[in-house]
């Protein structure tokens, strides 16, 4: 006869097994250009990697200049081979500071968002 405490531990371990298929909130893992970086030349594409696979229909990136004008091509995509990667092409960028705003939904429908900036030097 299993003691009540043992039953509880088994049940808790079982919960862990069932939960292995779960996803979670998608946190930013790393980005290119890197968060807060200064670049000598403008990038043609912005790429952000997340900790979870993403739902393409609800995942966006907006890049704006200091005046608040969008400078991305509005063609954001989730990478077909790596569903944790979101990327978007950028218009030609003059020197300045740019703000990146991302909003993503992981495949289990958890939504997260964030911002960061990068600089392009003269």
């Amino acid at each position: 006869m299993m003691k009540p405490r043992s039953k509880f531990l088994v049940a808790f371990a079982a919960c862990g097994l069932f939960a292995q298929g779960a996803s979670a909130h998608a946190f930013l893992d790393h980005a290119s250009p890197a968060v807060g970086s200064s670049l000598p030349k403008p990038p043609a594409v912005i790429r952000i990697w997340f900790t979870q696979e993403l739902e393409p229909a609800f995942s966006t990136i907006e890049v704006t200049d200091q005046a608040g004008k969008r400078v991305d091509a509005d063609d954001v995509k989730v990478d077909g081979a790596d569903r944790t990667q979101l990327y978007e092409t950028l218009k030609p960028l003059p020197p300045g500071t740019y703000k990146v705003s991302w909003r993503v939904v992981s495949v289990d429908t958890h939504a997260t968002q964030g911002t960061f900036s990068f600089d392009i030097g003269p």
Partner: protein
Amino acid sequence: MRRYHQAAAFAAALTILPVAEAGAHGFAGDRFFPATIQTDDPFVADEMSLPTITRVPPNVMGDQEVDFEFDIAKRITPDIGIVFSDQWIYSQPKGGPAVTGMGTFKTDLQYQLFINEPHEFMGMLGLATTWGHTGRVQALGQDDHVTLSPEFKWGKGMGDLPDSLKWLKPFAVTGNFSVDFPTRVNSNGSANQNMFNAGVAIEYSLEYLQHHVKDVGLSGPLGRLIPLVEITSSTALNRGLNGDGSTAGNGIGMGTFGVIAPGIIWAGNYYQVAAEALIPYGEQQGHGVGWMVQAHFFLDDLFPDSFGQPIFGHTAPRAARE
């Protein structure tokens, strides 16, 4: 039957109340607020702490105590939640035999008042209740009466500071205020006082630094650390002083006491772990240092399609599933 319809209508109304978008465990814009240990969290959530082990600082009599606590938080709607908690206590009075048993069962009904994403600011109202006679009253001195504690909890991230102060942006502060209203004036000849409780947690999120301010190369677990200091205080509002200034009843005066708890949290995708030292201060406290460790699970991430959802009202965009 009429009462049933009223209840159903009330439940339906709750599900359509205005709701901040759901992130469950503590998101406000860019900010992720971890579950702190001493200071109550300012957000409703589907989370579980199992266990929280506390080595209580020895009291003025030199008594030793270790607590093993369990709590579970469940969202009823996306912005109404409830927390259940209890603990098992090992008490070692100085010079006496050890005593063990259950502590007082507690509940906390919570309402997410607001979440301001641009300013990483959130507030919550709550009603905490300790249920008398649910723990070992005589042997461990647990409550023999119900205590109601209305409370306000808040959290504020510093991400809206100007870029010239960018290194301060990872800071966040959470806090809470509450007043205890015991339903009995005395228990075993000791006064049950109205207490004013306050707590604050000051956090510096390396996750926020790495992912929202500056990639400083913190990879792996280092990028998920949150050093913090928590400070709690309790102050008796009444029934503590006789006319001659001496303390009455249970010896609690009108001074303030509490703990200062420096520590660290590591928050992953599905769970977090935390450890803190407990440094007591004030007239009630002994002179030893205690400690606390906790494993905390994000049920909304572990069980996103079932237990991790509010009972009423799905929080995520359903279309994403279609």
